[in-house]
């Protein structure tokens, strides 16, 4: 019997393949599923459901045939505009309409890991290119990603690399490289930071492009983590990638991305780090392991995470099928994620977003409720027309009856069946004013704003 915590989940009486689990998979590895997608996943079983998430075929609707071309046009236009809001809107367009939501989830995770802010970089084109690097390399060997980032103009400008010169060291990049990007805190000494800063001298940015300035590089011998040599940036990256601590840090990052609060203990993370060490730090295969595991589908991992703002905003639009026939304004969606506490391309600092319980600030809570109201009132769409949830019910469960619609909405939003007393309380709060549609939309907004809907 395989006793690894990462052994694959197999449905059992105590842990059946059910709505909660199919819902959890799609929330965590993407941005929520529609009812039809959940039904298909439930019918086909966990293995196929995970396969589809991994191979980018999990979405049944709302993937435009010209997605790739449109996304590229939007991205290039945003990059050329010097308007960071358009870049945010571009990314939300990708999250909303891509065939491969897992790729965007990982891109978000890398944006959090190598957290770089436009506030200091002040170059929309560079932020765009960095984001495409996360997307392109974020599922392969971690070393490829790390080496690319050490040549990334946005990251280098963010961490003062161009002012780190021979005999004039600036430790900013060296410290964060070891503390946040690879080893993790406590796995190196202050002297390692100073020596690594010397190894990183010469990295530069000229007119937005990466340059290596040999005249600024300190080519004397350095000693980092007990190894002495004439280290340059690439050699330093190799040295750090070979450290066991880097796999530990990476395992922590991936658990932090996909699992609930306190779900993976130290031993569990260590087991994942061992896989990573034996597998060239391959991110995609570690994600495969996580998403298929008993840990992932275990009872402790269900509803054990406070959803991030991007997941809440995009997930609500996806689950409620508000993406068709008229798409919402992605500029507005970007504004909402910011009000909820996650301004894309503007992480609060190099540590990224604290996340977890930190998401539920007072303003975040009020903003979530107000987003729910905006969605239900049709204010996310340019034409201001409220969504028609009776038709959503008719499409999915063949009835327009308000109680059935509310039950359906509750299940796609929270992954759980709405108990009758909560349903009554919501109906009461929604009140009697207006048409039947008005009442239903108010109830949907209340469902979305309730505490339970903040957990994924």
């Amino acid at each position, binding site marked *: 019997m395989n006793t690894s915590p990462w052994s694959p989940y197999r449905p059992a009486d105590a842990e059946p393949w059910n709505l909660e689990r199919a819902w959890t998979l799609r929330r965590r590895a993407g941005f929520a599923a529609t009812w039809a997608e959940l039904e298909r996943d439930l019918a086909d079983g966990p293995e196929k459901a995970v396969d589809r998430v991994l191979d980018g075929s999990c979405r049944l609707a709302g993937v435009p045939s010209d997605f790739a071309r449109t996304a590229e046009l939007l991205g290039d236009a945003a990059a050329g505009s010097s308007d960071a809001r358009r870049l945010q809107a571009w990314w939300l367009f990708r999250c909303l309409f891509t065939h491969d939501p897992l790729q965007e989830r990982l891109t978000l995770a890398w944006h959090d890991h190598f957290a770089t802010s436009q506030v200091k970089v002040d170059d929309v084109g560079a932020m765009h290119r960095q984001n495409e690097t996360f997307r392109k390399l974020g599922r392969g060997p971690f070393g490829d990603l790390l080496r690319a980032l050490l040549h990334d103009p946005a990251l280098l400008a963010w961490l003062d690399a161009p002012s780190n010169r021979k005999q004039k060291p600036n430790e900013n990049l060296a410290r964060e490289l070891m503390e946040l990007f690879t080893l993790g805190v406590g796995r190196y000494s202050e002297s390692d930071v100073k020596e690594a800063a010397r190894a990183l001298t010469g990295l530069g940015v000229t007119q937005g492009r990466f340059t290596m300035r040999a005249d600024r590089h300190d080519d004397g011998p350095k000693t980092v983590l007990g190894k002495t040599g004439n280290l340059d940036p690439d050699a330093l990256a190799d040295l750090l990638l070979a450290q066991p601590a880097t796999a530990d840090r990476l395992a922590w990052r991936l658990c932090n991305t996909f699992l609930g609060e306190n779900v993976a203990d130290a031993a569990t993370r260590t087991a994942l780090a061992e896989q990573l060490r034996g597998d060239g730090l391959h991110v995609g295969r570690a994600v495969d392991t996580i998403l298929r595991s008993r840990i992932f589908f275990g009872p402790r991992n269900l509803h054990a995470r406070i959803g991030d703002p991007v997941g809440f905003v995009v997930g609500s639009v996806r689950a409620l099928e508000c993406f068709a026939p008229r798409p919402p304004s992605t500029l507005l969606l970007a504004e909402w994620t910011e009000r909820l506490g996650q301004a894309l391309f503007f992480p609060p600092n190099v540590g990224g977003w604290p996340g977890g319980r930190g998401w*539920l600030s007072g303003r975040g809570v009020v903003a979530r409720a107000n987003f729910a109201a905006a969605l239900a009132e049709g204010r996310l769409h340019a034409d201001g027309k409220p969504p028609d949830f009776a038709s959503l019910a008719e499409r999915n469960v063949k009835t327009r009856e308000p109680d059935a619609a509310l039950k359906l909405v509750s299940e796609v939003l929270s992954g759980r069946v709405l108990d009758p007393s909560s349903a009554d309380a919501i109906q009461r709060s929604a009140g009697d004013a207006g048409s039947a549609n008005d009442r239903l939309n108010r109830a949907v907004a209340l469902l979305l704003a309730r505490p339970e809907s903040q957990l994924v």
Partner: protein
Amino acid sequence: MFTRRDLLRRSAFLSLAPVVPEFLDRTTRAATPDRDGRVLVVLQLDGGNDGINTVVPFGDENYNKHRRELRIPTDKVLKVGEGIGLHPSMRAAADLIESHRLAIVQGVGYPNPDRSHFESMAVWQTAMPGKPDAANLGWLGRALDAAPRGDGPALIHVGDENIPRALFSRRAASTSFADASDLALRLPPPPAESATSTDDLTAFVNRTVATAYATAADLEAAAAKPDGGARYPGSGLAKRFELVARSIKAKSPARVYYLIQGGYDTHSVQAPAQSALLRELADALRAFLDDLAASKLADRVAVLAFSEFGRRPEENGSLGTDHGTAGPVFVAGPSVQSGIVGQAPSLGDLENDDLKWSIDFRSVYATLLDGWLNLPADEILGGRFSRPMILKT
């Protein structure tokens, strides 16, 4: 489309009663002692403020040696003690010392200092150095867990950052807002889930959501009231201090407010950035204390300002400074023992090129916890610490 918020708030909150007892009908209740009690405002200078260019040891012969490019000329500093002067942009802080409302605690730090922003900030926010554990609660959250439970938020973070860990608590309610535009709820609050959830995360979410709605309504009402001529500078920090003042004036039950001023991570071209930040800090602090004094509330308030670490005495090659260790802490309000507390670390006696600390930051916390908030400091901090003379006796 939504009916009037106030009307629905009343009905919707009835079902929240188990979570927030007596939360709503505040107007019918007499003020409890809590509402007239003492308040601590904590200001986090985020990024690691360069202490020796804030409280400048111009009398230390080694200052000029370490600070060749970033040196503040002796004739520019605002002298506040023997060989000690404030950064020239902190005129308002010098005025606070003149009017006996500002204490500067020198050389504050902790054993085995960590030069990581995140570790060091976690140490300051949890007051548990050497015990890295993601589950550690915040020092202020623990403090208010130990306080009698009021009927509203015990801790309010005013800012648009994620809620800081210092406020993480087991039971005490906390919430956070940035400005008046965050407060208008366009939705009747959803009915609460079962308030008695045994699951910690679910209980947290229920409590936090309910507290957020109720506090939004309170602060919105406070922000709408005309305010008798308080004068604040136009900075974001000043606006946050103003919201704190309004909340105190509106008899909020909160005993702790938390604010963050970011931008102190000055690895390059430090001088103009730090100068602007220190000016914003000093001006906002004076405006806040003057506003409360005019409302006869200043005696209820103490302000603590800290940074996660100071910076290395030796400047780097890009007109900036890298991460260091000990630094000064400010405590302000009419109840403080105004002036310099403790000894500035000597620039001629460094350890690994960094300043040695002389006062443990938990001593400052302890003084404020039992000396100011009347809470059991030793229990909250898990040990006995000295009590520097920061408060008037």
